[in-house]
């Protein structure tokens, strides 16, 4: 995948996240004359919409009813709720007025007035987010992998929600699942983009708290100061950023509520604290994962493995193929197209040299990922539930390497006795075989 395509995909995912989780709820809330900055609404509205998503997604998933339509409906619950709360008592009048004005504006061809957008106010976060998206172009390399092993748990749970396999109580995974459906992107891209957004939003929330406590003059320096944080901070799980963000929003809203005595801020504080508490739910009994911070990124897979898996995932929906790979790629292509490498080895070892042998996996094309150099995440992977749930062979680097070599033997034997087998990719770390039926 090219750097540009990755950046565009991330930008699209971020747009969907910002539009549906922040923009639409803020529009439903309407203008606030009493707010010193519109930026102050970003945190509370995201907390409210995120909490709605965290409640609704498990409910929809529990009846196997989570799909792109319900994702859009769920994304609409919070704006509708906020709009109803804003117009409580006069909802039908406000609705009629809105609909009529829209119809008559459309009929009379009068332009619909867009919400006011102050460039000076929004320039810092928008420029910061753009700078973070452009950072790979500056460094000359892009990496679509998740840099913290704990994030694989979130990606795993996101996949579980998307496949409808289980009801999962994880607000971060629920948000990722909704954005995945709406943005029609790969969950790996979404997990990476949400991670990026959370880092920036946490910085923004911290900046807003500083500005509220110390005065308005501090707003822009505080917000601007949060941007480099996205690039230079140590690597922490996305859930840690999410928890910090929710807590900062809660504290800010609580502070304003105590200071100004407006009920709305009290509700915001409550929503943010409930969200923060619910973000801890998946880590009960494993809270040390949240504070596991590293100065360098620690990957569970080769960069090429993630890129090749994403490339395959973008192939047309009706193409008929299967990916044989270590378990990390299962989260990148979805369960329906994945076959475990260990199973592949145990099933086909010593059989493929026979010219009459055929892979009976029920597809036209098979891709086999062979790690030529095993990845060793070290201590960072300890305690990660996704890693712990995999066969022991994958958790010991030597065994993992041996598994790869056995799979390579299978493919080489098959290639010697059969036509239509090719090496699709090889960079010394990863080799990808393509086997056509």
């Amino acid at each position, binding site marked *: 995948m090219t750097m540009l395509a990755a950046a565009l995909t991330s930008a699209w995912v971020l747009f969907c996240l910002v539009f549906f989780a922040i923009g639409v709820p803020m529009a439903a809330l309407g203008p606030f004359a009493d707010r010193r900055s519109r930026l102050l609404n970003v945190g509370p509205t995201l907390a409210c919409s995120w909490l709605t998503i965290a409640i609704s997604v498990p409910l929809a998933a529990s009846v*196997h*009813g989570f799909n792109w339509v319900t994702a859009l409906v769920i994304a609409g619950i919070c704006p509708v709720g906020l709009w109803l709360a804003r117009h409580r008592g006069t909802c039908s009048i406000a609705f009629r007025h809105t609909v009529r004005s829209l119809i008559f504006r459309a009929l009379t061809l009068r332009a619909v007035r867009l919400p006011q957008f102050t460039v000076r106010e929004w320039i810092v976060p928008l420029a910061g987010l753009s700078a973070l998206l452009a950072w790979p172009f500056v460094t000359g390399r892009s990496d679509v992998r998740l840099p913290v092993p704990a994030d694989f748990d979130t990606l795993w749970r996101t996949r579980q929600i998307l496949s409808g396999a289980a009801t999962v109580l994880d607000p971060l995974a629920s948000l990722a699942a909704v954005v995945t459906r709406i943005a029609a992107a790969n969950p790996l891209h979404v997990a990476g983009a949400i991670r990026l957004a959370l880092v920036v939003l946490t910085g923004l929330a911290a900046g807003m708290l500083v500005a509220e406590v110390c005065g308005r003059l501090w707003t822009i320096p505080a917000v601007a100061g949060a941007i480099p944080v996205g690039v230079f901070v140590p690597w922490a799980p996305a859930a840690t950023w999410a928890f910090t963000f929710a807590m900062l929003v809660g504290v800010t809203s609580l502070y304003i509520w105590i200071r100004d005595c407006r009920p709305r801020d009290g509700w915001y504080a409550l929503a943010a604290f409930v969200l923060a508490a619910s973000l801890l739910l998946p880590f009960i009994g494993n809270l040390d994962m949240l504070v596991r911070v590293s100065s360098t990124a620690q990957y569970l897979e080769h960069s090429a493995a993630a890129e090749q898996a994403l490339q395959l995932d973008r192939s047309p929906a009706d193409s008929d193929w299967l990916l044989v790979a270590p378990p990390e790629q299962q989260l990148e292509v979805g369960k329906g197209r994945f076959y475990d490498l260990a199973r592949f080895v145990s099933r086909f070892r010593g059989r493929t040299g026979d010219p009459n042998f055929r892979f009976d996996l029920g597809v036209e094309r098979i891709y086999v990922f062979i790690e030529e150099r095993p990845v060793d995440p070290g201590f960072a992977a300890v305690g990660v539930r996704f890693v712990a749930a995999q066969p022991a062979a994958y958790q010991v680097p030597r065994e993992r390497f041996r598994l790869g070599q056995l799979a390579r033997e299978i493919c080489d034997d098959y290639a010697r006795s059969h036509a239509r087998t090719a090496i699709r990719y090889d960079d010394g770390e990863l080799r990808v075989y393509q086997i056509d039926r």
Partner: protein
Amino acid sequence: MSLNAERVQAVDPGFDELVAAVRAVRPRLVDAWEATAVIESLGYTDARVQQEFGFSDTRAAGEYLYPMCRGPVGPSERWAPTAEPAVAIFTRAAASTLIYAVPWLSVFVAQILRPEAMQAPMRVAPALALALMFSLIVSGGFVQAIVRRGEFYIGMRQPGMARLVVEALLRFGIATTVVFGLGGLFVGWYFELFAWPALILGADAFVLMSVLWMVCGIFAIRQQHWRVAIALFAGFITFAGLRSAGGDVIMSQLTAAVTVLAAGLLQVRYVFGGAGSAATLPRHIKLPRLSVLVYWTVPYFWYGVLYFAFLFADRLAAGTAAAAVPNAPFSIPAAYNLGMELALLTLLVAASGVEVGGALFGRGFRAEALRPFVRDGATFAAALQRHHRRAMALTLGTFVVIAVAIAALAQRALPEIRMPEAWSTLIAGDLGYACLALGLLNALVLLEMRRVWAVVHELTTALLINLAGGYVLSHAFGSFHAVDGLLLGAGYFVVSSTITVQQTLKRSDYAYALG
């Protein structure tokens, strides 16, 4: 009144025309104020009556004119509603419903006798099924708008205006359909619902069928259902000819649809001909202001959209529940489809009962106007409620008889219907559609009393219940429970609409004034 006025009106033949016009509008004036109001409604301002007849203002003209128009009205001049004979009502209602029920039945029977002749390939069948449903939903709104506005202008003996308005609505409907088709194409591609060939075919079929339903709807304005029959017959002949010549199913279906559309379009110009031909229609008529047109048609548009959305909501829920299977975004289980198609056939045939019930209520509603109910609103309300109960009984009776007949025939002819899932779906579907039929009768009663928005509100809530209930139940307990959503929604619709009708009839004098 000045002497000048007397002189002017004595020599001005226009004043006689004004008197005649006022008499035509209101043969028996109540007082001079009413005369003034009628004069003003005819387009006469103070300046105009001063200029043309020499009166100081319209009030003076009204006072002068009132004694000339207040004379006693003879029995022959008394207004009497045009009471359509019951036989005519039955014939019209049966024709309007059977014209669609018979082709539906023919296709249904053909699917059973020669399934291979009708079955589309599996890769495109779901896209085509969705295209059919959404074409009915989107065009349903435009059909309602076209028919209601067309009937209005035809009733005012303005076929030229009717033609102009209907053509404008048709053009707008076609443009909207194309936009929706492109939107559907984008959604299907973006969310990877179908492969490109299926998407293109689905979008084509959606636009084609939507236009077809709208054109067929135009013939309902003057109850010329036989024109629909001609168009559908041409389509059937085309399909049968192409299939027997070895043509592909999809190609044959689309060509047949194009034939129906062409046959319909060729006949459209004769609908508004009236006594003369289409060529004699005035050419200088201008379309009413767009905002006024939209204001009057919007509630009927939503009524049509909601009605068809309600009809297919359970299938959408069932189709997506079965689609939990990978690589199948939409698929309805065969047994569910069979049960619901039989139930829908029952509704289509039994809709004649709804039509007759509604027409008989309308006739009774107008007939009650002749009886003196001075200061006795309760008796008037009781009379109208009696008409309503009769219409409900007729609708329910018709539905039950037809449902039993179709179920009995199906049991003899279709072994598949004896499967427990199909049979239970048929029974639940029949119950749901029976409630819907009663609700639709209530809707007709409310439309008669111009309470269109009340119908739209109730149908919207019923649709939401149908969709949400069907979606949750079908996903939680299996596709076959989607019909429970229909049952819940239809149950709500019949209860809420009956309450609304009863409340409206309690204030029957007001309802009558509106109606």
